[in-house]
């Protein structure tokens, strides 16, 4: 694992000073023996301690039909009741639901994310069912790639959301894989580590199970589906991984209910005809799944995701964007330049789109304005009409008022004249009475 340069002397020229770098060739790399204890055997501990203090991420994707037991299996694997409502069968399409949890065991902190495919297998037309799944996986890769390409980046405390393991739940029909299963797995096998499992395995009889498993595996092989290979290159795990591989796909039963068996409470499913014990290897492969997924290969799953699936995504994406590994001398430049060019191109497109949208917007606004103006004009007309009518009415009323007033004044005049006559007549009468009264009074006195 040393540098790829062949041996020999290499001359580097720098600012007039000859600086010779002597590197022995790979095979000349000396194995030295130590004359005492140096202490770098603590390196793995140093490394592990650092990782422990940061915590680990593990992300599982569960693909399977509604009601096949995905949530229950997760609950069983992690000994926890993760909050979730069971999904309905009426989903219009497949959507992915992700939930994150922080688990801790001794000094290990795990950020576990479980991604569920809601509505998978429920639609009448399942042509596009795999698409949201692929899109989700790609989005997580893209997020990591974007971070990696940033100029100022912080990868060492990046919250890794890439899917490390995909549990594919196969329905326990007992016959063979459904075409949806084959299509979906084929689309996913180059993007994620697939571990196929047979769900609700307690509905299959033991002899049928063996045939079912063989059929599934041979169908996978004949269709070229690449499932996750448990690693056999490291001595301590090679044996257990090889033994377990034989039992793929794992036939699992999930349960969070506990039943008393003997003098212990164990996770089980109670039927009238007996009790299916989840952790009994004669009853189902749950223990094997837990062993493989968590206790033996969790780190390898993470590593494969990063070094294989992510690298493939990155390579394809960059090639798609137009990069090429050309001459060795100018790589950082060409990548940067091309990246800049691509980014400018992209920005240019964005600007164009923005311009188009703005123009459309302006046009629509103009239209609306015109409409509003029309409405305003109508209103004004109505108002004018009303005003006119009002004025006419008013004039009528005024005219009538004048008439009335004239009548009233005529009447008053007549009244006044009549009163005058009356008073004159009275006066004449009263004057005569006064003369008579005065005569009388004169005579008394």
């Amino acid at each position: 694992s040393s540098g790829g340069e062949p041996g020999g002397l290499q001359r580097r020229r720098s600012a007039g000073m000859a600086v010779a770098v002597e590197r022995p060739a790979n095979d000349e790399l000396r194995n030295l023996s130590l004359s005492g204890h140096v202490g770098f055997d603590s390196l793995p501990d140093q490394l592990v301690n650092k990782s422990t203090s940061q915590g680990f991420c593990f992300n599982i994707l569960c693909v399977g039909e509604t009601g096949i037991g995905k949530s229950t299996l997760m609950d069983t694997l992690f000994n926890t009741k993760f909050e979730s409502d069971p999904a309905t069968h009426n989903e219009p399409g497949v959507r992915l639901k992700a939930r994150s949890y922080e688990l801790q065991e001794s000094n290990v902190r795990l950020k576990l994310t479980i991604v569920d495919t809601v509505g998978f297998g429920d639609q009448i037309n399942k042509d596009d069912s795999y698409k949201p799944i692929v899109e989700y996986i790609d989005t997580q890769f893209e997020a990591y790639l974007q971070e990696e390409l940033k100029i100022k980046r912080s990868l060492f405390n990046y919250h890794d959301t890439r899917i490390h393991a995909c549990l594919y739940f196969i329905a326990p029909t007992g016959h063979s894989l459904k075409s949806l299963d084959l299509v979906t797995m084929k689309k996913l096998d180059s993007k994620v580590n697939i571990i196929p499992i047979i769900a609700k395995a307690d509905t299959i009889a033991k002899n049928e199970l063996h045939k079912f498993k063989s059929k599934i595996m041979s169908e996978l092989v004949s269709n070229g589906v690449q499932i996750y290979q448990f690693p056999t290159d490291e001595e301590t795990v090679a044996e257990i991984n090889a033994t377990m591989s034989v039992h793929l796909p794992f036939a699992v039963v999930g349960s969070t209910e506990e039943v008393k068996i003997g003098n212990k409470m164990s996770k089980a499913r109670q039927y009238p005809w007996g009790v299916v014990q989840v952790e009994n290897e004669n009853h189902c492969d749950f223990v094997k799944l837990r062993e493989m997924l968590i206790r033996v290969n969790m780190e390898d799953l993470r590593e494969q995701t990063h070094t294989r699936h992510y690298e493939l995504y990155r390579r394809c994406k960059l090639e798609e964007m137009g990069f090429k590994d050309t001459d060795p001398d100018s790589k950082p430049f060409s990548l940067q330049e091309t990246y800049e060019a691509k980014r400018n191109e992209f920005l240019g497109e964005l600007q164009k789109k923005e311009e188009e949208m703005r123009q459309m917007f302006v046009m629509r606004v103009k239209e609306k304005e015109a409409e509003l103006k029309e409405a305003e004009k109508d209103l004004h007309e109505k108002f004018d009409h009303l005003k006119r009518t009002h004025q006419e009415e008013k004039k009528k009323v005024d005219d009538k008022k004048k008439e009335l007033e004239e009548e009233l004044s005529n009447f008053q005049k007549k009244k006044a004249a009549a009163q005058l006559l009356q008073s004159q007549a009275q006066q004449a009468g009263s004057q005569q009475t006064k003369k008579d009264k005065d005569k009388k009074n004169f005579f008394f006195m």
Partner: protein
Amino acid sequence: SADNKIEAAMSELVPEPRQKPAVPMKPVGINSNLLGYIGIDTIIEQMRKKTMKTGFDFNIMVVGQSGLGKSTLVNTLFKSQVSRKSSGWNREEKIPKTVEIKAIGHVIEEGGVKMKLTVIDTPGFGDQINNENCWEPIEKYINEQYEKFLKEEVNIARKKRIPDTRVHCCLYFISPTGHSLRPLDLEFMKHLSKVVNIIPVIAKADTMTLEEKTEFKQRVRKELEVNGIEFYPQKEFDEDLEDKTENDKIRQESMPFAVVGSDKEYQVNGKRILGRKTPWGVIEVENLSHCEFALLRDFVIRTHLQDLKEVTHNIHYETYRAKRLNDNGGLPPVTTETEENHESNL
């Protein structure tokens, strides 16, 4: 009013946001008084096994004037003939006219852990009459390693494991004058502490008494501080309070380590120990009351080795990369003639 109507019209025009694919929400903390053992903690063992299998790289550079015991010290650190001088190179050491960079790699194994150790020597540093800018070839070498790594990293088809030739640790040897740092020391450390982890050591500390040692160390620390030289472990990279407390003690009391190196063994009190024999006694290298070699060894190898690599990778390398990708970084264009180009030129 007309304004409200226009606003309502605008909201009609804004397109419906495209449904984003689901992304994990903030994690829900689950109290792990879990109902049973899951086995998550086995990941530690899994990780350890993997790292043991892949092995480790470590690249250490030694800088200092000739005769300060650099090669001996490195040999003592790794209990093996790892230095250039011991590797069968030209034994008649002529002081080179310029600063040379000489790297030599070995594979050493201990307790199942394989390490590819590269020792980078810098003969000629500080040995000329005019030592102006003699740190430049060293700075250039360090940046070249960052450049190499960066080139590998931006490849479309990348290697599974990018070979790491970056300098993780630079031991700077201070002459035990007992007075103060030399201008060359300050210049070097000022420039290089920005690109690499520098660990200053006081060489040939057996020429100082305990009091002289303590005083000298204090003076050196003061001078480094006054000149704004951040040696490893840098204050700004302390990750948490625990780190800070531990590192503060090292920065303010132990460093710079006053060391003595030796690859010869002597019999003392019935034990074979590494030491230097003088007419007035045997200086025991690994005896803490004689010198601080053991502290340096524990610090570099047993506790901070991984951290040295991580600071190099997460900080120094990232700084280089950011500068490089942002502009030409004010760095001189790096020309590296690879073997292929060399051949094609022929």
